[in-house]
C-alpha cells in the first residue's frame, strides 16, 4: 500500500493549474495503489492555498519565508523533507520550469528514480507504469517502476477537473527543514510578460516554427496573419534565435493559448509547444514532414511546402 504525494506548484497568483491535473492523476493512482493522496503545499504562507486542494486526502502545509517567492533550492529542500518524512510510493511533480528544478533535485536527494515527461500513469500490480514523451514527442517510452519513484507530468496530459473537485482534506503541518535558513540562492526580482502584445488574448493565431527558415521569411506568416486578422506567435526555437520577441512565444516557457484558430506553420510540435496550444478550438498545421508530432494535435494538416501554401492562402483570403 503506497501513498501518492503531489507537489503543489504555486505562486503569488495562487495554485498553479498543473497542480489540479496532478491531483486528478494522483487520485487514480492512489486508488490503484490502495493509498492516499497527499498534497505538499510549500510557501511563505499556505492558508489561502490549502482550501483549493480538496481533492487530496491530506494537505501537508510547510511554511517558511524562503519558500515564497519561488526559489528552486528552497523547494528542493521542502520536497525532499516531505518525501523523507512521508515516504510516499509515488511523487508527482509538474513537468514545468519549477518541476525541472524540484523533481530531479528531490529525487537525487532521496535516491529515488525519476521518470520525466509523463503523459500517462497507471498502476500495474505493485508497480507504476508510465508513458513518457521522448525525442521531441517522436517516440513514447513505457517504463515500469517497481518501488518508490518521482514522476514529472506534462501539463495537459491529465484533465484538471478531477483535481479541482473533492471534499475536505485533512491538514497537517510539516516543519520546514533547517537548511532553509542558510540558502545559497536569493530572489531578486520578478518581471511580468513584456507589455504590448498579449497573444494569450488573441482569438486567432498564426504561429511560426523553425521551418520558416529565417527571419527574412516571417513576412509570409505576417501577411497570412493580417489576412486572417490574427496575431503572430512563435515556437521556442524562433524566439531563441531572436527572430521574434519572447512575448510571442507559445508553449511551456512562453504563453499557453486557447484561441479559436491556431495555424501552426513550420512547427514540428515538440511537447513543450503542444502543451501551450493543444486547447485551441481549431488547429491547422502546415509542415512538410508528414510525421511531425504537430499533426497529432492538429485538426487539419497539410504537408505542402509552406513557401507555396502561405502565399496561395493569403491571396485567397485577401480576395474573399
Amino acid at each position, binding site marked *: 500500500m503506497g501513498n501518492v504525494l503531489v507537489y503543489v506548484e504555486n505562486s503569488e497568483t495562487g495554485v498553479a493549474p498543473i497542480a489540479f491535473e496532478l491531483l486528478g492523476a494522483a487520485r487514480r493512482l492512489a486508488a490503484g495503489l490502495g493509498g492516499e493522496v497527499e498534497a505538499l503545499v510549500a510557501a511563505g504562507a499556505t492558508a489561502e492555498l490549502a482550501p483549493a486542494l480538496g481533492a487530496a486526502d491530506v494537505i501537508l502545509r510547510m511554511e517558511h519565508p524562503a519558500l515564497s517567492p519561488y526559489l528552486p533550492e528552497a523547494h528542493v529542500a521542502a520536497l525532499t523533507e516531505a518525501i523523507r518524512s512521508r515516504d510516499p510510493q509515488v511523487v508527482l511533480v509538474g513537468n514545468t520550469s519549477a518541476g525541472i528544478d524540484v523533481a530531479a533535485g528531490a529525487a537525487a536527494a532521496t535516491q529515488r*528514480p525519476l521518470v520525466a515527461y509523463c503523459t500517462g500513469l497507471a498502476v500495474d500490480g505493485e508497480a507504476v507504469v508510465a508513458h513518457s514523451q521522448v525525442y521531441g514527442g517522436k517516440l513514447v517510452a513505457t517504463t515500469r517502476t517497481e518501488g518508490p519513484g518521482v514522476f514529472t507530468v506534462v501539463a495537459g496530459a491529465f484533465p484538471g477537473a478531477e483535481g479541482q473537485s473533492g471534499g475536505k482534506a485533512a491538514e497537517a503541518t510539516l516543519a520546514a527543514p533547517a537548511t532553509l535558513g542558510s540558502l545559497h540562492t536569493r530572489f531578486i526580482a520578478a518581471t511580468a510578460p513584456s507589455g504590448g502584445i498579449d497573444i494569450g488574448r488573441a482569438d486567432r493565431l498564426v504561429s511560426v516554427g523553425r521551418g520558416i527558415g529565417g527571419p527574412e521569411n516571417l513576412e509570409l506568416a505576417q501577411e497570412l496573419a493580417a489576412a486572417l486578422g490574427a496575431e503572430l506567435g512563435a515556437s521556442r526555437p524562433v524566439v531563441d534565435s531572436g527572430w521574434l520577441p519572447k512575448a510571442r512565444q507559445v508553449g511551456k*516557457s512562453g504563453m499557453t493559448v486557447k484561441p479559436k484558430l491556431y495555424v501552426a506553420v513550420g512547427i514540428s510540435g515538440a511537447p513543450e509547444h503542444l502543451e501551450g496550444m493543444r486547447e485551441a478550438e481549431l488547429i491547422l498545421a502546415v509542415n512538410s514532414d*508528414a510525421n511531425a508530432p504537430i499533426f497529432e494535435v492538429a485538426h487539419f494538416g497539410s504537408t505542402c511546402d509552406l513557401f507555396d501554401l502561405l502565399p496561395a492562402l493569403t491571396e485567397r483570403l485577401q480576395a474573399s
Partner: protein
Amino acid sequence: MHIAVVVKQVPDLVEELEVDAAGTGLDRAWVKMKLNEFDDHALEQAVLLKEAGGAQVSVVALDGEGIDQVLYAAVARGADRALKVDAGTQEPLDSRRAATALAGAIRDLGPDLVLTGVQAADDLFGQMAPFLAAELGWPHVSVVSQVEVAGAAVRVQQEYAGGRMATLEVDLPAVIGVQAAPQPPRYVPVSRLRQAMASGALETATAGAGAGTGGAAVTQLAKPEAGRGAEMLTGSPDQVAEKIEALLRERGLLRG
C-alpha cells in the same frame, strides 16, 4: 572565473527514429547524433560570459562516438579546455548515471560555475543539471535564459510559463540549466574546427565511482499511436488553400 560546460549528443530529430529489435531502445545503427541544442546554448552563454568579463571555459563530456568532434567544435567556439570523461562505456548513459560519472571529473576541474542544457530529447529519467548539482552539493537553477556574473554569485533569469521571469542570485559554485543564451549559438567555421582538431588538445579523465541510481526499467519504446490526429488536406498548394478557406468560412473564422 572558471566555467565548465557539460555537453552531450542527442539523436538528430530530423532523422526518422527507429526502435531496436528489443523494442526498448533506439536503433542506433541509423541514428545520427548531434549536439543537444540546449547544451549548445549553454556553451554560447559560457562564451558570452568569457567575452564579457573574461573567464576560462572548460567543456566536459562523457566519452562516446563522435564526441571528439563535439568537443573540438566547442574549442573552436571559444572554449579553452576540452575534457572527455571515460565512463568505461561508449553507450549513452541516462542523465542520472551521467551526472554521477561526471561529478568527480568536474570536482577535479574545480569550476566556479557549471552550465549545461536545461534538458535533452532523451532525458527520460530527468534532467542532468539538478542531478549534477545534487552530486556536487551545489545550488542549482534551471530554465535559465541569461546568466551574469555578480561578484561571488551569478544572477540568472529563470523563465516560467506565461512569459513570467524571475531574477535569482545564486552563490558560486553553482549549476545552471540553460534554456537559451541571450543570442543564438554562433556558427563554427569548419576551418576553425579543423584547427582545433589539429591541435589535438583534448584532455581525458576517468569517471568517478558509483553508478548512481538508475532510472526505472523501460519496457517499451514505440512511435506514438497513429489514428488520432489531423485530417490531412491534400492537393496542390492552391487546392489546399481553397480547402482551408472553405473550412474557415464554414467555421465562421474568416475575417470581417
